């Protein structure tokens, strides 16, 4: 009995592993070091920093076959930061191994002091609006303080990391906290053992049908009179994430997005 349960648990585990394993085995092969990934028109970075960031971005690129783009602009015309981002994607046709492929873009609008994060291609889903919001809120303090290199490094690292997480989860989710996992496990263990102990003395195995004389028992008379109807209504809250939330470029490319000032 006991061995049977344990083996069942092991089989379940092996099946779960089997489902998961193929996901992350795609090996990084191509390197896109020659590709231009950083468009520092506002000159926020030294050539040295630019070199380092570019190297970092191209190192991470193969893992999710995604380009990590940094675009800074003084934006003298005062254009909208989201439009700038969309137009850049339309114009440059980013994408790791194909035009208009997977790309994550960080746009700095130094005129309005606004930042926009966008995910194109598969990144639209693997980095949805709420994940981009999280990344943006984590880098905003550095942006505000002028630590651009640190902020951009974090942006590339976090974007790459968050793309690993499925079903909209982020590392901040309780599911990934050891204490929470432990708590759930203890609760499951406690409930099951409690049920086992409670059942050890035998359980009642009769119910109402055991003694009911079904030949005569039943509903003799009934009525269901409708009296009135009440209706309540409430306005559906539009789920508005703080920093915007993606859209579609004039070139027809939809994307996820997060917008904010710094």
């Amino acid at each position, binding site marked *: 009995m006991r061995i049977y349960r344990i083996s069942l648990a092991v089989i379940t585990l092996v099946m779960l592993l089997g489902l998961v394993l193929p996901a992350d085995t795609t090996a990084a092969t191509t390197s896109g070091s020659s590709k231009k990934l950083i468009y520092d028109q506002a000159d926020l970075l030294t050539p040295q920093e630019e070199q380092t960031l570019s190297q970092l971005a191209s190192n991470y690129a193969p893992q999710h076959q995604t380009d990590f783009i940094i675009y800074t602009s003084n934006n003298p015309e005062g254009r909208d930061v989201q439009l700038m981002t969309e137009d850049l994607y339309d114009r440059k046709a980013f994408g790791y191994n194909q035009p208009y492929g997977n790309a994550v873009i960080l746009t700095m609008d130094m005129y309005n002091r606004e930042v926009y994060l966008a995910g194109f291609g598969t990144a639209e889903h693997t980095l949805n609006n709420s994940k981009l919001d999280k990344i943006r809120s984590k880098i905003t303090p550095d942006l505000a303080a002028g630590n651009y290199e640190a902020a951009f490094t974090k942006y590339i690292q976090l974007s790459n990391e968050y793309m690993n997480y499925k079903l909209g*989860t982020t590392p901040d989710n309780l599911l990934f906290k050891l204490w929470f996992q432990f708590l759930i496990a203890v609760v499951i263990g406690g409930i099951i*053992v409690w049920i086992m102990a409670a059942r*050890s003395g035998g359980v009642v195995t009769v*119910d*109402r049908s055991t003694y009911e004389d079904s030949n005569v028992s039943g*509903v003799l008379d009934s009525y269901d009179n409708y009296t009135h109807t009440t209706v*309540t*209504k409430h306005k559906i809250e539009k789920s508005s994430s703080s920093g915007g939330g993606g859209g579609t470029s004039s070139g027809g490319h939809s994307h996820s997005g997060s917008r904010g000032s710094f």
Partner: protein
Amino acid sequence: MPVIDYKCPNCGSSMMFDSATGALSCPSCGRQDNIEQLPDPLKKQVFTENEVQQYHCPSCGADIMTEPETSATTCSFCGSAVVLGDRLIGDLAPDLVIPFSISKAQAEEAFRKWCRNGLLTPAGFMSADRIKSITGIYVPFWLYELHNMVEVYANATRVRSYTQGDYQYTETRHFDVYRKLRLDYVNLPLDASEKMNDELMDKLEPFPYEQLKEFKTPYLAGYIAEKYNYDDEQLVPRAKEKTQSYIDSSVSQSLSGYSSVSYRDKQVNTTVRRTDYALLPVWIVNYDFGQKNYMFAMNGQTGKVVGKPPLSKGKITAWFAGITAVSLLGMKVLAWALGGDFL
């Protein structure tokens, strides 16, 4: 002479009820008498219903030591099966009996098997080598036939939700509902013995009623039988309490389909149509473990065992730790599947 015994007409030995054949059988010469065709000696004798102080074994003449509620036992000196006739007549005459179908040896084997399957019981208990006694007892039960007329008035609602434009609408339709139910319960058993734990006896159910037989004293030969401590009037409140949950569940089933039901009025009119005094077969197992006595009861027909076994702290801890570890591993795998780190 209020004491009845069953002498084999062939050899004169004391005959016993045989759970395998359902006949009164002689252990010496193998004679088998069909009980249903046997004249019951109880019917032939005339007793005065006075409280007899002392009973004597008809075989050896020794005093029979009994408790006041015992109506059948075996002589502690010669082992003859004896039935105390004056405790089975008049108001105390049982109507029905379900004979044992599980013998003492089978009961012991079934109990051992049950012990081995205990997941949380200590290892020393599982070996089941400390059985102090296994006693076959005919426990007195009242079998009730209860007729219930149930009338329920309630306010019920059906809720529907839909979206239109920017608004979420919740539409609640209100109904005035009425239900009249007839709920008859037959052969609802309630143990009438003071000694027996009610909860334990409730868990022993169900008893196979197709085995119900007209009462005859030879069924008791070789077993202990008790007479009731509570009469059928005294147990009516417990009978109603027992059917309460059955009635509630029938009523709520008749009102299924509503999102919410709040009762305005609920009337249950119960009539006790009939009560039968029945003796039902129970094996009582006394078990010594760790200087404590544990009592278990087994349904003498189905072999179902009930009773609180000792629980091993070590095993509880081990199971808890094991299940917790497997759950934690499961959580880890889930976290990993969602893209997190495994450790």
